[in-house]
């Protein structure tokens, strides 16, 4: 096992990783930007290094600063959290070149799964269901149109290097196709420096359901059930839950098996997530992408399975075997996570950071809070607006939502200029549409409407 881990991240996930390390008896190094110097993880970690100014490019995305910090402190491994360098295959290579373990999949696995065209090919070969579309990047409009003729409209044009909702366009009308194709290529080139795009059928009111997997370096791959992340606003997840409400058992089983098959085919090691779209019409599911990192919403799975995903992730990165087998994974009850962001729902969810004059997290039975907030903390405006993840568990979904309602109500966050999404989330989860659990990615718009 590692003796010391450097945490190349900030906010709640940095604290989450530090907690896992402490429970495993591993020493921790926090790295921080200037605006994060008074943050919770800086206090919490055994050591802390000031690596750069607020802008992530010069701090949390600066490979030299992070590698240098790891070498200087004698860290055996780097945990990248999510975002920032977590799915950067080059960073994983640089870590290896410097004799530092990267807590994530091998660099080549990240590279292959990060290329959506390559991932589609791989998963298709592994027998993972796929939406009809192109398996190769499309070089011309004519070629692209041929695919569209074959699969029918509507279609979605996606950047091979995209992900997380960026670099894609939906086309409903054939007349718009040529233009959309060119625009998406240009956007992809601009955003990712890679203009390759592909086309697949577009599902309008699909559900977003993902499967959590864990794999070690000894050939063991398990899946830990699903999370429904359909409740999104502009591709930002707001509420996640497990089990996915009303998901037929055979479908759940098939998705779990597909994820394990896909992970094996990719040579996956670590904690990962297979994202699928579920078509409420046909009841079919299709591969979307693999996230080669721990996810924001991983606590949902932890609450129902009792498995500490971050601990397992660290252990397998250290070469250990998974402590649990597929049979040990026995999901129990229902868990729901709400992301409390410092945003103003009344002003288009504009960021609303500031000093937390009052910060009293929810507590009591079956409530978990992952947050880097504390009274007096100044939330910087430089990064994403996630302040706290509020997660609850109950024997069933209905009770879990009641519990979430009371937990959201009792969470007290205030300060000059500070606004949060807690109230909005409370309304969302008590809406009859949400309660019915007939999720699709347009549920938030439906509720807001």
């Amino acid at each position, binding site marked *: 096992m590692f003796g010391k881990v450097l945490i190349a991240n900030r906010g709640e996930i940095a604290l989450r990783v530090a907690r896992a390390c402490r429970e495993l008896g591993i020493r921790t190094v926090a790295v921080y930007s*200037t605006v994060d110097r008074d943050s919770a993880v800086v206090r919490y970690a055994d050591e802390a290094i*000031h*690596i750069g100014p607020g802008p992530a490019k010069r701090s949390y995305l600066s490979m030299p600063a992070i590698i*240098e910090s790891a070498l200087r402190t004698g860290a055996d491994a780097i945990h990248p959290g999510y975002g920032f360098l977590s799915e950067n295959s080059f960073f994983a290579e640089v870590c290896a070149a410097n004799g530092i373990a990267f807590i994530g999949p091998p660099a080549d696995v990240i590279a292959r799964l990060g290329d959506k065209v390559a991932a589609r090919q791989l998963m298709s070969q592994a027998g993972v269901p796929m939406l009809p579309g192109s398996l190769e990047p499309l070089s011309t409009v004519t070629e692209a149109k041929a695919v569209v003729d074959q699969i029918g409209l509507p279609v979605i044009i996606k950047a091979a290097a995209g992900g997380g909702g960026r670099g894609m366009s939906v086309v409903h009308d054939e007349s718009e196709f040529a233009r959309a194709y060119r625009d998406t290529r240009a956007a992809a080139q601009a955003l990712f420096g890679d203009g390759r795009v592909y086309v697949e059928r577009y599902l309008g009111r699909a559900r977003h359901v993902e499967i959590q997997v864990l794999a070690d370096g000894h050939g063991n791959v398990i899946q830990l059930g699903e999370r429904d992340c359909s409740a999104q606003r502009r591709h930002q997840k707001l509420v996640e839950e497990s089990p996915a409400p009303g998901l037929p058992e055979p479908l759940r089983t098939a998705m779990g098996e597909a994820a394990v098959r896909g992970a094996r085919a990719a040579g996956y090691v670590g904690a990962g997530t297979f994202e699928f779209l579920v078509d409420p019409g046909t009841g079919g599911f299709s591969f979307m992408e693999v996230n080669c990192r721990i996810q924001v919403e991983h606590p949902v799975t932890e609450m129902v399975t009792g498995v500490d995903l971050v601990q397992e992730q660290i252990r397998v990165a250290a070469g250990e075997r998974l402590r649990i087998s597929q049979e040990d994974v026995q999901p129990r009850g229902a868990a729901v996570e709400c992301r409390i962001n410092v945003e103003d729902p009344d002003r288009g969810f504009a960021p609303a950071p500031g000093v937390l*004059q009052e910060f009293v997290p929810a507590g009591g039975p079956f409530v978990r809070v992952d947050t880097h907030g504390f009274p007096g903390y100044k939330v910087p405006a430089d990064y994403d607006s996630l302040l706290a993840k509020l997660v609850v568990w109950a024997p069933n979904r209905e009770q879990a939502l009641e519990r979430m309602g009371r937990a959201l109500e009792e969470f007290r966050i205030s300060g000059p200029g500070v606004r949060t999404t807690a109230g909005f989330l409370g309304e969302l989860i008590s809406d009859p549409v949400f309660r019915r659990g007939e999720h699709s990615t347009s549920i938030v718009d439906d509720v807001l409407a």
Partner: protein
Amino acid sequence: MTTNEVARLFGKEKSGDSSEAAPAEVLKQLQESALELLGGLDRAPRSLRIKADQVEIELEWATPEPAAGAAAGAIPGAIPSAVPGAAVALPEAAHNRESPTGQYVVAHTVGVFYRAPEPGAKPFVEVGDVIAPGQQMGIIEAMKLMIPVESEVAGRVVEVLATDGAAVEYGDRLFAIEPADS
């Protein structure tokens, strides 16, 4: 937690139900009201808070002796925001040594600081040297990359604050500078 020395002035637009006064207007009124109220008091308060609709003003004084009409003034306890990329006069790293001029060249990355291009060579700069903007003053090695330390100002080196081969963090002071225009 929160300091007592906070002065707040903020508006909380909520669901603007049309028929209300514009926040800007209300704010102006509140502001006037605050000053009037303070003028009318013969005992200076420690704090004042006025709220109307979605707008509120809150004032708090640190010392029991409040400044007359202190409504605006400097905000005590406010954290000055760091200027990205500024290599001079970064206010952090308070444990670092002080310069009489208050101007420094600081480390712009974490790494190992070297004063000379190679071991045994002559240092890039010495105390007393006059420096120009963009002039190299040292090297920081990070991940085997050699990153030059350059001055952003014209001036004179007053003191060398970091030793050769020292492990430095971002913002650590390397040189004290007397600016040419000071």
